[in-house]
């Protein structure tokens, strides 16, 4: 990360704009759109099938081969269901909420690099034009993703509020508090990656990860370079952000019926469902981009029948990594029991946020030291000592606080008792 910050921009968009450019842009948009929709359908099927396997059931089997058309069948069924808008609801917001839920999920996907040969710059030659295989590469890059995930809260919050019903309201307030709590940790985990990459652009991040690895076999992926901690924080915070199990208190069907979308029916309900799975795929894609080098990977066969197919390997690696990440999400769902709400908040604020911040500072100290040729081992030891001291202080402070609060409560109890006595005497 030296030199001036290169303004990452798709070379396709820097010259004159002709018909080819417009068509290519539209093509990329439609490609990403189709990819998202198809993968959502397959993801729902994949999740049900895999969960079935993990529960020793079959999962969907009837519609199509291996039940692969189950999602489509469910979707078609929902089209024919009556759409009810509760009388007491706020009709305008009630109808707006599905849009607010789905559109950010959709837009966040725009910054994910899908393919390209990142061993040689990552750009692709198509019809004589050079471009990136991603919908857009805005200079704010990963901040775009954070912005969209912060807007996603609106869909959940307003869906619950506008229903004019108690369970959805409780579910939505709970959900938004949860999403908001984990967004802090999410942003701080991203900051660690930005620190290493020296850029906000997702294209640059992938490019940095495609560089020569360690010992020739271990890739230079950020999951290793940033020392695993930001990755773990990001995955946990991301799962909570998605409201997926084990963080699915939002829907906790035993307590809240269906959570924020209890009052939704028919295709409007399907839209929330779609948004949820779209978010899962986007989140997995962002994890792959940030920590696993996105489409970066070796090009095994560079040319086929005279065509340069180096960029197609990028697509393949990206899909493989995405698939593994999606598997992990389903796996977590099948393995981990749901959190209690206080545990959830504890994890977010008392563990993830401080850890992410501490690790960020640690990485920053290492990086600064590297630039000034300090002794790395010394910095590491010193930083670890500082972290240990900070943790010890924190634990002490919290313990003191707890004791003080317990004392106060006890004193209050005595006071109450005395108060009751005096009242009793007086009467």
């Amino acid at each position, binding site marked *: 990360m030296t030199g001036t910050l290169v303004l990452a921009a798709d070379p396709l968009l820097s010259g004159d704009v002709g018909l080819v450019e417009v068509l290519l842009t539209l093509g990329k948009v439609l490609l990403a759109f189709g990819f998202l929709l198809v993968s959502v359908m397959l993801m729902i099927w994949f999740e049900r099938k895999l969960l079935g396997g993990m529960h020793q059931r079959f999962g969907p089997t009837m519609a199509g081969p291996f039940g692969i058309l189950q999602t489509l069948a469910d979707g078609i069924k929902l089209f024919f269901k009556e759409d009810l808008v509760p009388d007491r609801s706020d009709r305008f917001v009630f109808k707006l909420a599905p849009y607010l839920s789905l559109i950010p999920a959709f837009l966040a996907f725009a910054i994910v690099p899908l393919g390209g040969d990142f061993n040689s710059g990552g750009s692709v030659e198509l019809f004589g034009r050079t471009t990136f295989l991603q919908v857009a590469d805005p*200079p*704010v890059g990963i*901040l775009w993703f954070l912005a969209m995930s912060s807007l996603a*809260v609106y869909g959940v919050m307003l869906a619950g509020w506008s229903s004019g019903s108690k369970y959805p309201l409780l579910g939505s307030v709970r959900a938004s508090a949860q999403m908001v709590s984990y967004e802090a940790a999410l942003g701080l985990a991203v900051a660690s990656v930005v620190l290493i990459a020296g850029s906000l652009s997702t294209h640059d991040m992938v490019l940095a990860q495609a560089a020569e690895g360690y010992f020739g076999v271990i890739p230079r992926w950020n999951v290793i370079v940033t020392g695993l901690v930001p990755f773990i924080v990001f995955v946990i915070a991301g799962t909570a952000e998605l409201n997926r199990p084990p963080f699915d208190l939002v829907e906790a069907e035993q307590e809240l019926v269906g959570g924020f979308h209890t009052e939704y029916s028919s295709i409007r309900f399907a839209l929330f469902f779609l948004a949820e799975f779209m978010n899962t795929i986007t989140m997995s894609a962002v994890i792959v981009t940030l920590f696993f080098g996105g489409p970066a990977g070796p090009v095994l066969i560079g040319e086929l029948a005279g065509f340069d197919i180096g960029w197609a390997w990028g697509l393949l690696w990206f899909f493989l990594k995405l698939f593994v990440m999606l598997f992990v999400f389903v796996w977590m769902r099948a393995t981990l029991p749901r959190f209690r709400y206080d545990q959830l908040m504890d994890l977010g604020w008392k563990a993830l946020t401080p850890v992410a911040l501490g690790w960020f500072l640690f990485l920053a100290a290492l990086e600064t030291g590297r630039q000034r040729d300090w002794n790395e081992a010394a910095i590491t030891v010193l930083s670890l000592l500082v972290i240990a001291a900070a943790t010890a202080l924190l634990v002490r402070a919290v313990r003191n606080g707890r004791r003080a609060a317990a004392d106060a409560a006890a004193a209050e109890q005595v006071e109450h008792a005395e108060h009751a006595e005096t009242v009793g005497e007086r009467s």
Partner: protein
Amino acid sequence: MVETVFAVSAVLILAGAVGVVVFRNPVHAALSLVLTLLGVAVLFVLNDAHFLAAVQVVVYAGAIVILFLFVIMLLGVDTAEKLRVEPIAGQRPLAVVVGAALAALLGTVVIIGADVLTGLRRSAGERALDGSASDIERIGRVLFGEFAFAVEVTAALLTVAVVGAVVLTRRTSRPRSAAAAADASLQDSDAGPDAPSTDAGRGQ
């Protein structure tokens, strides 16, 4: 093209701003505030201030308005606000005075700084920021160079806000009677923290 985008976003911004004042339902007002904020983000992009645009969305649309919505839900507002009631005596004439003062201030700024706004003359800050670097780089250079102290003061300000909120929310549980305390503990243990209409709300 730039003019079109500017015109569309300007209309959205103004429509949102009018909506904030006109809507009686606070949630609708908050939503139209989001519209205004997103429009401003588009204007930032139009001026190549990409980082500021992202900040506008992440902080204002994503956090501040969410905070507003939490407050609205905290109050449990289900009906439109009663406009007849005047909680602070004389707040209406006062609002007119403050509004006029604000408008006068804005007008003065526009008149004095007309050359800067139209680009005829460049402000000192603009000259300092000159260069081909991206806006995030330039902002960083100013924030962590010249205004380093202001950044720390910002941190202190935010911390004070949190401390204030904690103090205010805690005070509600102090002068509670023993019966209410028992009631609260019962309610906390079985109904969960977000049971409707808790004593926290009553304490307001």
